[in-house]
C-alpha cells in the first residue's frame, strides 16, 4: 500500500472529483471547494513524488506549503467576490450569472 502509485491514484481521484465538482456544482461555494480539491490533488502529488523520487526532499514540501498559502488567499478572494455577487444578485447560484454571452 505504501507505494507511489497509491498516492498517484488517490491524487488522480481527487483531481477528477474536483473537476467534476467544478463542472457539475451550480453553487459557487461548492465550485470553490472543488477547486481546492484540485489544488490538494496537486499537493498530494508533490508530496508523493517528493517522498519517492526526488533527490532533494525539500522541494515538494516547500511547494506544498506555498500552494496552501496561496489557496487560502484564493479562497479569501473568491469568497469576497461571491459575497459581493450575493449582495447584487441575492443568489450564489452560477446560473444567475449567464447574461454575457456571444
Amino acid at each position, binding site marked *: 500500500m505504501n507505494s507511489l502509485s497509491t498516492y498517484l491514484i488517490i491524487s488522480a481521484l481527487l483531481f477528477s472529483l474536483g*473537476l467534476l465538482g*467544478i*463542472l*457539475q456544482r*451550480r453553487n459557487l461555494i461548492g465550485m470553490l471547494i472543488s477547486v481546492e480539491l484540485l489544488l490538494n490533488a496537486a499537493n498530494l502529488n508533490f508530496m508523493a513524488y517528493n517522498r519517492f523520487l526526488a533527490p532533494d526532499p525539500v522541494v515538494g514540501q516547500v511547494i506544498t506549503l506555498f500552494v496552501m498559502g496561496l489557496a487560502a488567499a484564493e479562497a479569501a478572494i473568491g469568497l469576497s467576490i461571491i459575497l459581493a455577487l450575493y449582495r447584487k444578485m441575492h443568489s450564489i447560484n*452560477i*446560473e444567475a*450569472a*449567464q*447574461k*454575457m*454571452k*456571444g
Partner: protein
Amino acid sequence: MGAIFRDPVLFATVLGANLPFFTMAVILIFTRHNPRLSSQLSVGSIAVSAVCAISLLAKLFFAPALQYQTLWFVSGKLNIVFGYYLDPLSLLMLTIVGIIACLVQIYSLGYMAGDPGYSRYYAFQSLFAWAMMNMVIAGSMLQLFIFWEMVGLASYFLIGFYYEKWSASQAGKKAFVMNRVGDVGFFLGLILLLLGFGNLGIPELNHAASTHGLSQGLLTASALLIFCGVIGKSAQFPLLTWLPDAMEGPTPVSALLHSATMVAAGVYMFSRIFPFFSGSHDAMQFALVIGTVTMLLSSSMAMVTYDLKQVWAYSTVSQLGYMVMALASGGYFAGVFHLTTHAGFKALLFLCSGIFIHEFHTNDMRIIGKQGGRKLKIPMVCITVGALALAGVFPFSGFFSKEAILSVLAAQPNKIWFAAGLFGAVLTAYYSFRLIFHILLPMGGIEEKHHHDDHGGSSHEHEEEHHGYIFWAMAIPVMILAGVSLVLGFAEHPLEHFIMRSVNVPGELAAHGGAALQTVAHVAAEGAGHAHESGSPMLLILGVSAGLLGIFVAWLEYGRKGASRKGFLSHVPAIWKLFDLRWFMDVFYRKGLDTFMYAGLTSLFTLNDRRIIDGGIDGICIFTEGSGRLFSFLQSGMLQFNLLLMVLCAGAAVLYFVI
C-alpha cells in the same frame, strides 16, 4: 527629316498626304466656331493635296516605282516600317482621291451651307482625305491596314454626322462594326504573314508570291483572310448591308466615301497586292464567287427601292462586285479601270442626286419626279450622263471599263461567270434607268407646286441670292465630273499602258517591284489575250445589247406613256419583299445579334457575374459571418458549459498524446 525637304517628290507626297490631318486638327481645336474659315481651310488644303497628287502623277508618269521608308519601331524580330510606295497604281488612285475629294468638298460648300455642324463636317472630311491618301500610298500592308481603319473611322463619323437622328448613328455604328468583322480577318491575315513571312512590305509580298517565296498553304490562308477585309470594306457578300444604310450620311459623304473612294479601298487593296492574291488559285476562285454573288444580289435590291440614294448605294455594291470579279478572274487592268471610271460616274450620280435631295428635301424618286425634278436642267442632264455611263452605253466611260471586265470574264474557262456578268449588266441598266425615267417622265406629269413657295416674306430675296451661290457650288463639280465621265473612257489605252507597264526599276527595288509588276502584266495580258481571241466584236455586241436591253425594259415599264410604273417584280410580291428586305440579311444579323449576343451571351454572362461569381463571393462572406454566429454559441453565458469545453479540449489533447 531633312530628306523631306531635299527630295521634291517626297516633299509633295508628305505634304499632299498629310496636310489635311493638320487641317483637321486646326479645325477641331481652333476654328470650331468659325465655319467659314474651317471650310476654307479644308478646301484649300485638299486642293493643295489634289495639286500635289496631279503633279506627282505627271512627274512620275514615266518614272519607275519609288519607295520611301523609315523604320518606325522594332519589337523583337518585328520591324515595323513606315513608308510610301509610289507606283502607277497608287499614283492613279491618289489622283482620283485627290480630285474627287476636292470636288466633293467644293460641292459641300453649297450642300452643307448653314448646317450647325459645318466645321465638324469639314474636320471629318479632312480626316478622311488624310487617311485615304495615306492608305493609297502606304508602303506596307500594316500601314495600309492602319489607314484603312482610319478611313473606316472617318466613315463612322461622317455617316453618323446627323447624330441627333437615331438611324444615322445606328448606321454609323453598323458600318463600323461590320467593317470590323472584315478587318479582323484582314488583321489575322497580316499576323499570319508577319509570322510566316516576316515582312509586310507591299513590293516584297508581291515579289514573294510571284516567285513562290511563300508556301502555298500560308499564301492561301492569308490571302483568304485578307480578302475578308475586302469583303468588309467593299461591302461584299455577306457584309454588304452596311453600305445602303450608310446613306444616312450627308449626300456628298455618300458620294465621296461610300461610292467613289472609301468603299473602293477594298478593291484597291485587292489590286495593290494582286500578284500576291493571284499566287493562290483558291483564294481567287473564292473572290470570284463572292464578287458575283454580291453583284447579283445587290442589283436585285436596287430594282425595288424608291430611295434615290439607296439605288446608287446598291449599284455601288454591285459595281464593286464587278471589280472584284474582274480582279479575281485575272483582269488586273479591267478591275482598276472600272474602279477609276466608277469613281467618276458614281460620284457624279450621287452629287446630282444630292442636288435633287437638297432642292426637294426628299429621297423618294417618285416625289422628286412629281415635283418637277427635271426642271433642274444641269443636274438632270448630268445624272443622265452618269446613268448612261453606269449602264455601259457608248461612249461613256462605263462602257469601256465594263467591256474590259466582260472580256476578262469571257476568258474564264467556266462561262457562267461571263453569263452572270452579262446578266448583271442588264440589271444595272434596268435599275438605273428606272430611276431616270421616274424623275424625267413622272407619272401624271408635274404638280405645279414649287418648293420655293414654302418660303416667302422678306427673306425671299436673300434666299434667292444665297441659293444661287449654293447651286453653283454644287453644279460646277457635277459638270466637271460629267465631263470626266464623257472622256475618261477614251483614255483607256494610255491608262492601260501606264498601269501595266513593266518598269525597269533601278536599285534593289527592281528585284521586287519589277518582278511583281511583270507578273501583273503577265497575268493580265493572258486574260486580255483570251478575250481578244474569243472574238471581241461578239463581246462588244453582247455588252452593248445587254445595256440597251436593260434600258429598254426600263422604258417599257416606266418611261413610255401609260406605263404601269410598277415594275415586273411587283407581280411577285414575295420576291419584291425578298429584294426589298435585302434578302433578309439584316433581319438575320439583327436577330442573330439580339438573340445570340444580347439575349444569350450577354445576359448569361451578366447573370453569371451577378449570381454565380458575385453571388458566390457574397455567399462566402455570408458563410463566414454565419460561421462566426455559429461559433459564438461556444461562448455561452453558462460558465460551466465553457469550462466543460475547456476541459474537454485539454482532455482531447492529452488523449491525442497518450494514444
